[in-house]
């Protein structure tokens, strides 16, 4: 298990070694700013993963709006056109239904497309191809037509982009058998999961977050290696704890870690699970954690109704009911289209204090409901 330092960041391998040999140096490394430890932004993690996988396999290609000459709407694909040429890095017209269908057809015939949606809001224009042409094909054809495709791009709220540009699609895509849905948080997650997604023979929805692109995370030599890959379907315990389990994915992992830090100062030890994979969902890890802590708070950015937290809660009710000492708490985005005004927007997205409050509720609810009435 990774050692978690005061800032809530997972310690690098270098840091762990130093902690045993030279405690003072380890403290420096643990802050994550030492020259010896490498840091990488999520943007660079994406770029390097794309670069390495395209280099390793000539059938991998990238297609989407502005991915080529513009270097990527968010500069994720910077340099790739120069390196791999216009046959493998393709700028498309603004026609999601058309180019997504073309991508899926290319996958039918043995290529490994990476389709970029400028944001997943635009994936709705192509959703028939994602679900009916990609997700279901292997099943309907009894294994003849497999679809090794990755659909990637920013998902969820950005900042001030309004209702049509802020929706989280994790619940929509995770609903569908035949898809895999991944939600990286850190640069390590991003590199490992994107490489796994590109190598995977099934259609993968890779949900990034625009606000994380510029964030830096420490990365070990292992993570930087071109063969680095993370398993699909396995969550990561970002922070161990014993009093309450907090599940989160993508940007909310950072918020959950901040909440855990605040809670620890109030004597509540929170275990933070970075889901990494929404479909398959790591039910085993979630249930194991709840069986240990007996309390659960689910955190997600998207709309609450029929969301990720609902599924996690049900999984725990089904498999670990007797272990629950309190009702499951759910933190999610507000049940309204995303407003523009900054104060309203702030109210529409989960904040760290929302998570802290819910965790406290989960912890003080030791008395059964009937007795409280």
């Amino acid at each position, binding site marked *: 298990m990774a050692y978690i330092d005061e800032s809530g960041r997972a310690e690098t391998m270098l840091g762990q070694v130093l902690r045993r040999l030279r405690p003072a140096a380890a403290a420096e490394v643990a802050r994550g700013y030492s020259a010896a430890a490498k840091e990488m932004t999520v943007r660079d993690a994406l770029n390097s993963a794309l670069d390495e996988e395209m280099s390793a396999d000539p059938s991998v290609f990238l297609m989407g709006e502005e991915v080529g000459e513009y270097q990527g709407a968010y500069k994720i694909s910077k340099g790739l056109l120069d390196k791999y040429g216009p046959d493998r890095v393709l700028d498309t017209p603004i026609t999601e239904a058309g*180019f997504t*269908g*073309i991508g899926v*057809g290319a996958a*039918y015939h043995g290529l490994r497309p990476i389709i970029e949606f400028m944001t997943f809001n635009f994936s709705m224009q192509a959703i028939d191809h994602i679900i009916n042409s990609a997700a279901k094909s292997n*099943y*309907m054809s009894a294994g003849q037509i497999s679809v*090794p495709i990755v659909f990637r791009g920013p998902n969820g709220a950005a900042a001030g982009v309004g209702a049509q540009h802020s929706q989280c699609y994790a619940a929509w895509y995770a609903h569908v058998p035949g898809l895999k849905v991944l939600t990286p948080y850190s640069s390590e997650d991003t590199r490992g999961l994107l490489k796994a997604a590109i190598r995977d023979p099934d259609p993968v929805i890779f949900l990034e977050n625009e606000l994380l692109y510029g964030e830096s995370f420490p990365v070990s030599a292992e993570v930087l290696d071109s063969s680095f890959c993370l398993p699909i379907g396995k969550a990561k315990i970002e922070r161990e704890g014993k009093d309450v389990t907090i599940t989160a994915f993508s940007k909310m992992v950072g918020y959950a870690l901040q909440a855990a830090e605040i809670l620890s100062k109030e004597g509540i030890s929170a275990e933070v699970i970075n889901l990494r994979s929404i479909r398959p969902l790591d039910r085993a890890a979630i249930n194991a954690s709840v069986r240990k802590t007996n309390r659960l708070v689910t955190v997600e950015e998207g709309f609450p109704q029929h969301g990720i937290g609902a599924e996690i809660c049900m999984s725990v009710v089904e498999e670990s009911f007797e272990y629950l000492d309190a009702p499951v708490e759910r933190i999610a985005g507000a049940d309204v289209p995303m407003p523009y005004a900054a104060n309203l927007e702030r109210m529409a997205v989960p904040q760290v204090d929302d998570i802290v409050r819910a965790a406290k509720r989960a912890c003080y609810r030791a008395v059964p409901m009937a007795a409280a009435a």
Partner: protein
Amino acid sequence: MAAAALLRRIPAARAPPTVFVAARSISDSTAALTIETSVPFTSHLVDPPSRDVTTTPAELVTFFRDMSLMRRMEIAADSLYKAKLIRGFCHLYDGQEAVAVGMEAAITRSDSIITAYRDHCIYLARGGDLVSAFSELMGREAGCSRGKGGSMHFYKKDANFYGGHGIVGAQVPLGCGLAFAQKYKKEDTATFALYGDGAANQGQLFEALNISALWKLPAILVCENNHYGMGTAEWRAAKSPAYYKRGDYVPGLKVDGMDVLAVKQACKFAKDHAVANGPIVLEMDTYRYHGHSMSDPGSTYRTRDEISGVRQERDPIERVRKLLLTRDLATAAELKDMEKEIRKQVDDAIAKAKESSMPDTSELFTNVYKKGFGVESFGPDRKELRASLP
């Protein structure tokens, strides 16, 4: 003498045979034969191919056999559906056989074909067999999709037949994607993406065509215009029913889709064009005798006179029969015998398909993923039915 007058119309290459019918067998000659298509091609932004089609007697006989087999299969499927052995949707192709057969004659199995849900005969044309087809229709494990797909989801990957799609129009961008991959892999092959007059108005078709034209993909968009999108006649659905022109900046050809030789000529022309220059649209003027599907009698929006008129004047099989008879490549009796043999083939296949069992219950959970990592999947009552996905 009538016989001599008839024989004089045969091209000079063949000398008139002496009259002794009984001992001669159906022609398997591969000597070249040139036959004119029923009507000339109409074109858009391209010079049309010649009306003179090169074929051989053997090929014409094959056309007759293949189309008759398809016809029989579809009619048998009609009976099976009424007997409730086929469930759900069943969209029959009888009347349109010339498109499937003519196309196949112009291309190779390395070229790709993708179509929508009226796919049984395309499957057969690509080398699929009757037992697999009937088994799939009846949801048996001997089916080409092991019973998991049904009528609308036939595939034959090893023959580059990519299905079999239920969502109207989706197959067109998918087909352009197949063409993209063919070009990417430098295969010098082409993709034929079939769609109906109903699908011709779909936005995604124009999106995919735009990209195909920009990137010069070897995509041939084949509109099987049977003049009705379900119950809606073409003039009620399309402001411009000149589907071969709808590609706008993309060249197009209008073809008599009931003339298998015209189809063959057009498809050969289209393949050569697409591999060299990028996309082209083919409009096949064809007709379906059945309604849209088995739930549609097909006679509420069309007159019986129209249907029987087409059958009398333009039936693709009858056209080839006439060719074979007038050119003395077969006798009426021989063709009748062939049809009898085909009927038996179909009946035997149905009997065999009926023997096939339904898929094992474990198949509910197979092929969800190619690589499932042992992930759990669930039945309606997950405490009762769950499985580990391989």
